[in-house]
């Protein structure tokens, strides 16, 4: 039976997971700043990363309010250990080449757009409000990366081969998006939150249409890796967190 405090806890965890997804992907994307060959793409990437960092701040502040113990956005970002982060593993993977980065973001944004759309009508006003704001940004991101995927898929033999491989490499991380736990169930049942089974169907249809346009084959659903919701990460996560938290850990308690 779900009690009132279970629901409270689920909302808090859910807000934190949204913040973790946004922060971890944003952190990966800012590694690419000043490394783009074309200025237009440099600007687009900075824009997208800035949106994710902004969303992380909002979700963390919301989590801080739900928790009610005075923790701030920075406490969540900088003072938790990597095992306390509950982002999707897909998002913490190294950027790889441009095609890998694009495929990772297409796969995630296709999910995130649907997740945010569902969250707009969730009964947690704080989360719903942030979702309504974030969705405009993420729709733009998805359009941007989808156009790139089409160019790369339907470009040269080399680009086609490269992104096909990116898809095969990253596909096994997509299952985790839809394999919810009690938190997801609770948010769906008690707060009119996202229904992951429905999202999965839509995601499958949308991604399949996009891949078709990009002349790419949709990989078979095989074995799927997961662990993000339990804080069990890839080997890459520790380094990401070490860089992220470097200053705060080197100078504990300082204000910046």
């Amino acid at each position, binding site marked *: 039976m779900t009690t009132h405090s279970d629901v409270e806890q689920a909302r808090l965890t859910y807000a934190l997971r949204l913040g973790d997804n946004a922060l971890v992907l944003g952190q990966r994307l800012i590694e690419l700043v000043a490394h783009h060959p074309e200025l237009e793409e440099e600007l687009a990437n900075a824009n997208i990363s800035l949106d994710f960092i902004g969303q992380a701040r909002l979700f963390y502040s919301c989590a801080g309010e739900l928790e009610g113990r005075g923790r701030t956005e920075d406490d969540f970002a900088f003072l938790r250990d990597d095992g306390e982060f509950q982002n999707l593993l897909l998002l913490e993977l190294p950027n790889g080449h441009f*095609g890998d980065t694009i495929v990772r973001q297409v796969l995630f944004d296709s999910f995130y757009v649907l997740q945010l759309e569902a969250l707009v009508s969730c009964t947690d006003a704080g989360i719903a409000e942030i979702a309504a704001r974030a969705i405009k940004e993420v729709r733009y991101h998805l359009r941007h990366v989808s156009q790139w995927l089409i160019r790369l898929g339907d470009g040269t033999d080399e680009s086609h081969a490269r992104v096909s491989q990116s898809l095969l490499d990253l596909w096994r991380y997509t299952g985790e998006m839809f394999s919810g736990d009690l938190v997801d169930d609770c948010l769906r049942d008690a707060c009119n939150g996202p229904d992951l089974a429905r999202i999965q169907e839509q995601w499958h249809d949308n991604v399949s249409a996009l891949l078709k346009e990009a002349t790419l084959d949709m990989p078979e659903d095989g074995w799927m890796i997961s662990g993000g919701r339990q804080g069990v990460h890839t080997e890459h996560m520790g380094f990401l967190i070490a860089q992220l938290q470097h200053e705060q850990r080197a100078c504990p308690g300082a204000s910046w």
Partner: protein
Amino acid sequence: MYTQGLDQAGSKPRRRDGLETDAQLAAFQARIDADEKIEAKDWMPEAYRRTLVRQISQHAHSEIIGMQPEGNWLTRAPTLRRKAILLAKVQDEAGHGLYLYSAAETLGVSRDQMVRDLLDGKAKYSSIFNYPTLTWADIGAIGWLVDGAAIMNQIPLCRCSFGPYARAMVRVCKEESFHQRQGYEIMLTLVRGNAKQKAMAQDAINRWWWPSLMMFGPNDEDSPHSAQSMKWKIKRFSNDALRQKFIDATVPQAEFLGLKMPDDKLEFDEQTGHYRFGEINWQEFYDVLAGNGPCNRQRMATRQQAQADGAWVREAASVYAEKQAARNAA
């Protein structure tokens, strides 16, 4: 800014025989003297065009290379707010590069060509960006001092005789002064922090003060081409005058922060109302300009790597565009 002292190669007005008559040159100078704006399609002496292409493209390259030292702290910014502010700043710099390249393109040189010149080591960028950012305080020092020096240089450029450059500078200056305030605010927070943070702030100005003074270029007597740029109203103040203005504005800010500029000779002169300061190490300036600064190779290698990594992507995009064009034609 980001250009003064870099234009060492001859920019003497060399006439193209038979193409530029005395009457044309006199009429052009009369327009300049009357404070008219020269637009891209107007007649202009070849040397004026060349001087501007070099200056604007160097300025653009500086904006782009300047993203690297600051980008170095993006993943480690100490708070999410600071991270977002720094990211927005670096994004602004990319935007500045974009409008400056566009302004230079109005003079008949393509962005591709300018970028190729940078990658081939033929074009220069401001030497300040060849210094490393070693601590978070360097991000504060860059915003405060480097963007501060940039503003000093760029405000007069808003009145530059070449219209597209002047208009680009108006927009750029607004953002630069925002950057400068944010940099100063980082420093202010650090000096009000713990002992380690204060030491970090002092160490940053120890390393950035002199290079930021070098941003104004060589002393006037060693800057032989300035006179022509002044006559053309590309440049409005001499290197030394701008440097002095910057020092006079910045030293009191350092005092307010409780930080000491690394110059024992720095002293306010009651009579002139200006600060006197020590000798700049011009050997270091020319060394860094010649490629021998701490990060010259690293900065160029990063750009070259980015260009090489992007080759397959550019090719894919252009092949896709051709396919699309063919499909639309069919």
